[in-house]
């Protein structure tokens, strides 16, 4: 089905053929023909953001909450450069995006024309792949390839740079059929022998742990189902990275909680003392491993990942399996069943006893207060009051993000949108907008900090324009809390530039945008205020005034091992004491 049309029309046609119903963008000179083509159709809805970074994060939120490719459309020059933080964020968290950027006409490329930048040059390092479309003949193929590359293998962002003359040119459009990529064909099935070997190792394990990551969520709902099946089949304990939360339900009895720098005591000790680690779709990030040469020293390690470069990148493993999580998990379960493997029940019972001992430390506990709202308490109440609803959570980056990960419990994948790898403040609100666009009837909450939210506050205007009832739940401690915490731990409590001076009145700000504002500083009033937020039929900014001094624990200090965590009780009185825990080497790390 080839048909003659302009480049701009082809772009809209390709979006339809790729099943795209919503895109996020901002117009400008170099994309006017595409906006004109969008104007003349109804299949693809365009959401006008207020800043291109917002478009990128909104597309990420859309992608993460649906499993589909997120799409953004921005103009040349500043449009493209503003999107870069979002593209980098998507690269680090493996989120499939297609970013369409306008470009000056081909004959002006390289002449420093108005709003020209070398978009493919600049984005080469922050995309999975990118294209500059030089002629109309290449356009249909490149558009479909871009979607293929974005969603296949380890997903990621793809930029298609579209010179204005190509948007105007006439050419023959081809649909996505028969587009087979010459070079990029990621392997989905894991090696059968290695899978058998992995299963045999699992059957022999005495102190096993499953450590799952965002790859399980990216692989699709089937992978989460299979992960649960494998856990049920083996009775192994399971922990997960920040990105992997929800793949295994937090209410599941084998759940240890999140691991890593602000993970639970039991998860980190289990990782440290295990004799077999099964890493599934996780990548041994430095937030996870702590000190590398003391990382789980006595264990054999199996690593399942679709990206061969993830295996042996930071931690040497004993058995690497390259493949898609769902495919490999399915094969593992089949082998386990057909070969009639049994776990070492006695050893496993002893292992669980040890784990329960660690659990008894209650590492997420905090000192409750009747006078001030503890941030952990705020997240707990938010969880209790929303857990029976159809809820999606996004976050910004910082202390509030870690408290959300610790105290909000996820039962399903794709419900938790957070900036893990890049740690992008300002991610949460636009991501909530993208999520709400994909799930108009659901409750979408951005758990935020007062500093992060101001980085993309302008997107409140987008929420109001499209009637998106997103809830911004700000844990307001008047500090860039994580910065302040590190300054307390590492820099003698010299709070250099981390106090949020001159904060706006968030209630008035909400009203100024046309939304609703709620403020609460009294623990006794919190439930009522949260319900007011939930029940308001439009966007809400909730200014939750919390304890200003609270730190995020437990914590693996920089340069320390999993079994050297510090807990809240130890840290009670003094930053000075904690400061001395981190040595000079640790201070150099981030």
């Amino acid at each position: 089905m080839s048909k003659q049309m302009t480049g701009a029309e082809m772009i809209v046609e390709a979006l339809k053929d790729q099943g795209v119903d919503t895109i996020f963008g901002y117009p400008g000179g170099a994309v006017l023909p595409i906006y004109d083509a969008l104007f003349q159709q109804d299949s693809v809805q365009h959401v006008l953001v207020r800043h291109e970074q917002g478009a990128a994060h909104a597309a990420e939120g859309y992608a993460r909450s649906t499993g589909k490719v997120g799409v953004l459309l921005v103009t040349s020059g500043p449009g493209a450069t503003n999107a870069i933080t979002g593209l980098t964020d998507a690269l680090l968290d493996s989120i499939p995006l297609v970013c369409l950027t306008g470009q000056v006409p081909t004959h002006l490329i390289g002449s420093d024309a108005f709003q020209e930048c070398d978009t493919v040059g600049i984005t080469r390092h922050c995309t999975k792949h990118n294209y500059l479309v030089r002629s109309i003949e290449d356009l249909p193929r490149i558009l479909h390839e871009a979607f293929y590359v974005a969603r296949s293998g380890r997903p990621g962002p793809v930029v298609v740079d579209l010179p204005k003359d190509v948007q105007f040119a006439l050419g023959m459009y081809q649909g996505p059929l028969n587009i087979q990529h010459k070079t990029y064909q990621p392997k989905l099935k894991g090696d059968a022998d290695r899978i058998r070997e992995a299963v045999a190792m699992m059957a022999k394990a005495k102190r096993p742990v499953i450590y799952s990551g965002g790859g399980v969520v990216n692989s699709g709902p089937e992978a989460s189902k299979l992960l649960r099946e494998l856990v049920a089949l083996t009775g192994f304990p399971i922990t997960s990275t920040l990105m992997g939360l929800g793949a295994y339900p937090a209410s599941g009895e084998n759940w240890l909680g999140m691991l890593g720098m602000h993970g639970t005591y039991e998860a980190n000790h289990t990782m440290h003392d295990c004799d077999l680690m099964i890493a599934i779709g996780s990548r041994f990030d430095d937030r996870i491993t702590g000190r590398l040469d003391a990382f789980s020293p006595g264990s054999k390690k199996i690593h399942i990942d679709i990206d061969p470069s993830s295996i042996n990148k930071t931690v040497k493993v004993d058995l690497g399996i390259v493949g898609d999580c769902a495919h490999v998990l399915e094969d593992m379960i089949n082998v386990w069943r057909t070969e009639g493997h049994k776990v070492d029940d006695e050893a496993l019972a002893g292992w669980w006893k040890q784990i329960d001992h660690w659990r008894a430390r209650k590492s997420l506990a905090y000192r409750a207060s009747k006078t001030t709202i503890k941030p952990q308490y705020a997240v707990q109440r938010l969880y209790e009051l929303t857990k029976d609803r159809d809820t999606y959570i996004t976050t910004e980056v910082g202390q509030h993000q870690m408290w959300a990960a610790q105290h909000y419990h996820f039962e399903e994948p794709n419900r938790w949108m957070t900036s893990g790898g890049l740690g992008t403040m300002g991610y949460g609100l636009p991501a909530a907008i993208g999520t709400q666009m994909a799930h108009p009837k659901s409750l979408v909450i951005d758990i935020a900090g007062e500093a992060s939210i101001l980085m993309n506050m302008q997107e409140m205007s987008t929420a109001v324009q499209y009637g998106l009832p997103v809830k911004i739940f700000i844990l307001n401690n008047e500090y860039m809390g994580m910065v302040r915490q590190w300054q307390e731990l590492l820099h003698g409590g010299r709070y250099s530039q981390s106090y949020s001076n001159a904060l706006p009145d968030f209630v008035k700000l909400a009203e100024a945008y046309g939304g609703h504002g709620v403020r609460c500083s009294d623990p006794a009033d919190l439930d009522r205020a949260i319900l007011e937020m939930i029940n308001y039929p439009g966007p809400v900014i909730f200014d939750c005034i919390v304890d200003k001094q609270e730190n995020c624990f437990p914590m693996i200090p920089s340069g320390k091992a999993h079994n050297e965590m510090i807990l809240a009780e130890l840290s009670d009185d003094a930053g000075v004491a904690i400061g001395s825990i981190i040595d000079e080497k640790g201070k150099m790390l981030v």
Partner: protein
Amino acid sequence: MNAIAALSPYSSALGKPNIERHTLSVLVDNEPGVLARVVGLFSGRGYNIESLTVAEVAHGEHLSRITIVTTGTPEVIEQISHQLERIVPIHKVTDLSMQARVIERELAMIKVHGTGEHRSEALRLSEAFRAKVIDATIESFIFELTGSPGKIDDFVELMRPIGLVEVSRTGVAAITRGAKGM
């Protein structure tokens, strides 16, 4: 104390890191920007490039072959191969140094200035190395020499006291022996 290096994932916790030299052959689609992707990967991830050559090897299919000589620990070399494989327009990455028999060749043009005894000494040595004279004036030669990088290094060092003016080298091209392709 070498604090940073001790914490690097690429250095072995036990003893000195074992640095090796490897030659990688990379078959790529000859499209704009592909070389920038490869070079950018090396600079962005802190890998070394000792030499790099690139040329189209199949015009009809627009395939180019990039030959990269790099150094690193075995872990780093393995990472480099895998990271290269992630680049979309790359067809194939082969670590030639892992193959049993590899031929590496480089071409160099070496300009030498000299008169009298120096001039005839340069000519004598060039014959020993089977270098070709491709340009001559009363007081200079340009030699063309093909061989392994080590052989070229040796010749250049011999020319230095005689009157070496400048050297232009292509970098290494490499291929495996025998009937099988990469």
